[in-house]
C-alpha cells in the first residue's frame, strides 16, 4: 500500500464536539507532570482570570489527534498507522482552553511529500468552539515510513 499523493488539499469536516471536562484536564495535567494549580483548582484558575480549570499548553493534542485519525483511518489515504512516526507539532492558541469548552476540529491536509515508498504529511486542525470562536490551530507532520525502509 502506498500513500495517495492526491491527499494534499483535502479536508475533513468537524465531527462530534469534544467537551473538555475538568477531570480530563486534571488527568492530562498529571500525565505530563504539569504542576500549576490552575490545572487542578478552580480558585487558582480564577485568580488568573480563567473561567474554569485551565488546560495545559499541549492539551489540544487530544482534539487534534482525533481529527488526524479521520485521515489515518480513511481507507483512501493509504496510511499504515503502524508505520507512522510523529515528526513535528505546533500549537497556536487563539485563547486558552478551559473546562466546559465544546470544541470541534476541521482537519486540512496541507502538504504531502512522497519519499521512496513513504511520505511526509503535514496536517492542520482548526479548533473552534461549536459557536465558531477560534480557539487553537495545530499543525503536525507525520512521517509514514516506506515498506522497504
Amino acid at each position: 500500500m502506498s500513500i495517495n499523493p492526491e491527499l494534499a488539499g483535502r479536508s475533513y469536516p468537524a465531527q462530534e464536539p469534544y467537551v473538555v471536562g475538568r477531570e480530563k484536564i486534571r488527568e492530562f495535567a498529571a500525565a505530563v507532570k504539569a504542576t500549576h494549580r490552575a490545572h487542578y483548582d478552580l480558585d487558582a484558575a480564577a485568580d488568573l482570570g480563567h473561567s474554569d480549570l485551565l488546560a495545559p499548553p499541549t492539551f489540544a493534542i487530544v482534539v487534534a489527534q482525533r481529527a488526524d485519525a479521520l485521515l489515518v483511518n480513511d481507507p483512501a489515504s493509504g496510511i499504515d498507522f503502524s508505520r507512522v512516526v510523529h515528526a513535528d507539532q505546533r500549537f497556536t492558541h487563539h485563547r486558552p482552553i478551559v473546562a466546559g469548552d465544546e470544541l470541534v476540529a476541521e482537519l486540512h491536509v496541507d502538504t504531502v511529500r512522497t519519499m521512496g515508498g513513504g511520505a511526509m504529511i503535514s496536517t492542520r486542525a482548526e479548533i473552534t468552539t461549536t459557536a465558531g470562536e477560534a480557539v487553537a490551530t495545530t499543525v503536525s507532520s507525520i512521517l509514514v515510513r516506506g515498506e522497504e525502509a
Partner: protein
Amino acid sequence: MIDFNTLQKGAQIGSTTVFVNRGDLVRYAGASGDFNPIHFNERFATEVGLPGVIAHGMFTMGAAVQLVTDWAGDPGAIIDYQSRFTKPVPVADPDGTNPSDAPGTAIDIVGTIGALDAEARTARVDLSVSVEGTKVLIKAQAVVQL
C-alpha cells in the same frame, strides 16, 4: 510578575530534569488517547525497528514546557509552542523494579530567551531538551505573552 524590560535575549530562564518510566507512559497513553503500542509493548516496538519502548513525543513536549509555565506563572500565557521530534526517548524496564516506581529516563531541559518582541510584548523561550547529552527535541520554542 516578569518585567519585560529587564529581559535579555540569550539569558537562561532556568533548567530542570523530568524523569519518565513505563508507568508514566501508560498514564500518558490513557490521558491523551494515544495507544500506539510502541509506547508500552517491548516486543512490538522492537519488531518495528525501535531500540525498545519509547516515550510519546508529545509526552516529552508536554513535560518540557513546564519550565516555561513556572517562569511565566500562567500556563495560559503560552500562546504558541512547537517542536520537532528528532530522536526517540527510550524508556527501559529494569529488572526487579515496579515499572511505576522505577527511576526512569532523565530528560534534561534548559530554557533560554531566544527572541523578544517589544511591540507584541512576547518572549520566545527556546528549550534545549536532551537525554544523556543527545538532543531529543529540536526547535522546541514557546512564545509567552507578557
